[in-house]
């Protein structure tokens, strides 16, 4: 990437208050950047720190959360902005679509209200102008009969339609970055494809940058340009989609992909991953993945590997690096 990226997260560490008065670190020393018009996939199991990384971009940590590092966006560092200024960025420059459209839309506010309230707040435009814009957006996300849809309420739409509406809400203020947190997980498989296609089209039509958070490697491969894999609060592998998904170099990425059902001749092979992800309060020493790793060596118990470049545009956090040249 020659030009400056749209967003660049540098050495982000997030801490939350723990139950015993100490602090937990759900995200540690994470760096990632998203270029203009780029779709970056952020993957990992539950508890790997994906969602909280995304929420940090909006300044929406849980109560008591603290951040260090830098989040550079539009020439400023979001971490140094006063809360009021971050609230202005939220929804206007960076917008978010949540996982479950059944719960993320307000059940008692009309679609129009939900589409226009932040538009009017951020832009200060009148109700009529906001309505025109809202109709445009509903048409953009392919909601039929947009003018009538405005008067309706979320429960009157199907899950897929609701997610389209949620996307329209996110796009209202023409944000530069869209964070999509598991946008298809709660939907039926048949509906998922439509939403993915929509996101793809929107990127093309609007030149939108997307941070796509998912634990679904299928969604990841359908949409993203670049892929960032997280484990236990840290980035363990980054690279282009083709590189990472076809030739994973970190053992964790390898087992993530291995846990996918894929066809081998007549058989469906499925290798479930061993063990469960560690809790952030009780990480094993050394590489946090070593207890579940097939290639772990003695030194993995002692050294927590840093992220280092192994090819152009490719970095992993593994001292063993056993997978050079091994296909997925």
């Amino acid at each position: 990437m020659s030009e400056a990226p749209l967003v660049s997260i540098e050495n982000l560490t997030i801490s939350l208050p723990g139950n015993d008065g100490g602090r937990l670190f759900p995200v540690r020393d994470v760096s990632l950047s998203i270029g203009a018009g780029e779709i970056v996939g952020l993957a990992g199991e539950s508890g790997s720190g994906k969602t909280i990384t995304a929420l940090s971009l909006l300044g929406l940590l849980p109560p008591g959360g603290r951040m260090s590092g830098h989040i550079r966006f539009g020439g400023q560092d979001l971490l140094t902005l006063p809360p009021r200024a971050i609230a202005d960025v939220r929804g206007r420059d960076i917008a978010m679509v949540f996982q479950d459209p059944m719960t993320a839309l307000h059940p008692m506010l009309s679609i129009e209200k939900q589409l226009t309230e932040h538009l009017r707040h951020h832009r200060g435009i009148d109700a009529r102008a906001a309505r025109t814009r809202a109709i445009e957006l509903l048409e953009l996300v392919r909601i039929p009969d947009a003018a009538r849809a405005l008067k309706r309420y979320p429960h009157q739409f199907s899950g897929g339609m609701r997610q389209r509406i949620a996307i329209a809400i996110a796009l209202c203020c023409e944000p530069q970055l869209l964070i999509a947190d598991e946008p298809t997980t709660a939907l039926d498989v048949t509906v998922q494809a439509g939403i993915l296609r929509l996101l793809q089209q929107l990127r093309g039509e609007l030149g939108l940058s997307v941070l796509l958070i998912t634990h679904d490697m299928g969604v990841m491969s359908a949409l993203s340009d670049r892929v960032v894999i997280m484990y236990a609060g840290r980035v363990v592998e980054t690279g282009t989609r083709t590189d990472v998904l076809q030739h994973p170099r970190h053992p964790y990425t390898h087992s993530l992909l291995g846990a996918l059902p894929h066809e081998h001749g007549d058989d469906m092979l499925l290798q479930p991953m061993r063990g469960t992800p560690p809790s952030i309060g009780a990480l094993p020493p050394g590489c946090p993945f070593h207890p579940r790793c097939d290639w772990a060596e003695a030194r993995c118990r002692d050294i927590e590997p840093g992220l280092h470049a192994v090819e152009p545009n490719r970095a992993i956090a593994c001292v063993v690096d056993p997978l050079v040249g091994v296909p997925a």
Partner: protein
Amino acid sequence: MQQPIKRAWYALPSLVRFILRRLAIGVLLCVGVTLVSFTLTQIVPGDPVAASLGDQASSDPETVAAFRQRFGLDKPLPEQYLIYVTNLAQGNFGESLQTRRPVADDLAKYMSATIELSLVAMTFAMLAGVALGIIAAVNRDRWPDQVIRVISLAGVSVPTFWLSLVCLYVFFFQLGWSPGVGRLSPGAAAPMNLTGLYTVDALLTGNWKTLGSALAHLALPAMVLAIYTIGAITRFTRAAMLDAFQQDYVRAARAKGMPERTVVMRHVLRPALASIITVSGMAFGRMLGGAVLVESVFSWPGLGEYAYRSALALDLRAIMGVSLVIAAVYILVNLLVDILYAIVDPRIRLS
């Protein structure tokens, strides 16, 4: 249901269906209430004639015979119940032992004072309770929340009759801020009877002196009566708000960059209010019960005070009349509240 009826039923708008269903439940509840009160009058030990007519009247055989025939006491129980309900439906609650007047007339006379008192108290309780609940929820676990928690627990813990006395002692006897007991000062004439609510009637007739006196007399008992409900609504509002705060849609509203004030007042309070409305009906019922104690201390000529005097005179018909009326009001208020809820919540209104 038969097919055509079923089809016609589902052809109705959902809101109408909802209201009709609630109405049916309300009617059923009313029937149930009369069953309970009928049972109660049956389990009274001793001669119901004597209990209802009093010693003097029951010594007169002619009156007793007329009474027996009128209430069908010689007939089987189901038939007696039917007669009982028919009498009630005609507004015939029997005669009060104490006032020697038909209970229905007494009820009509005392009802408006109770309604005025409890409406003012309820309004006050809703405003204060919801406001305190919001402050507590927004400041969850910080000092305002803790202070409000203690206040609201104290509100549901203080004995109303005692608080009434304490307030009278302090604000009337010691400080002289309150004009004391009753609905009006001796100098003020009761306003023309339009609604029975002195404040409203005085306002409508432009009787300023009476209006001032009525308001001054209303303030203290209404506040005391509201205390328990304030505590209850505060705690309920806090719980409902915290519940709403945890919803995804609130996080989504924050992610849109909405100011926290708007998030609280629009996205959190609105769903919370819907459930607060539903409990306010129950709270109103409780308040009518609590009015007995407040009215008896403040000599407020309402249903509660009437029930109190009747109870002391062991005047069962009068008390049953009061509890039937209050139960009916309770059912009616809850019916209205349910309908209001359906109108507020689009998920019921448009489905």
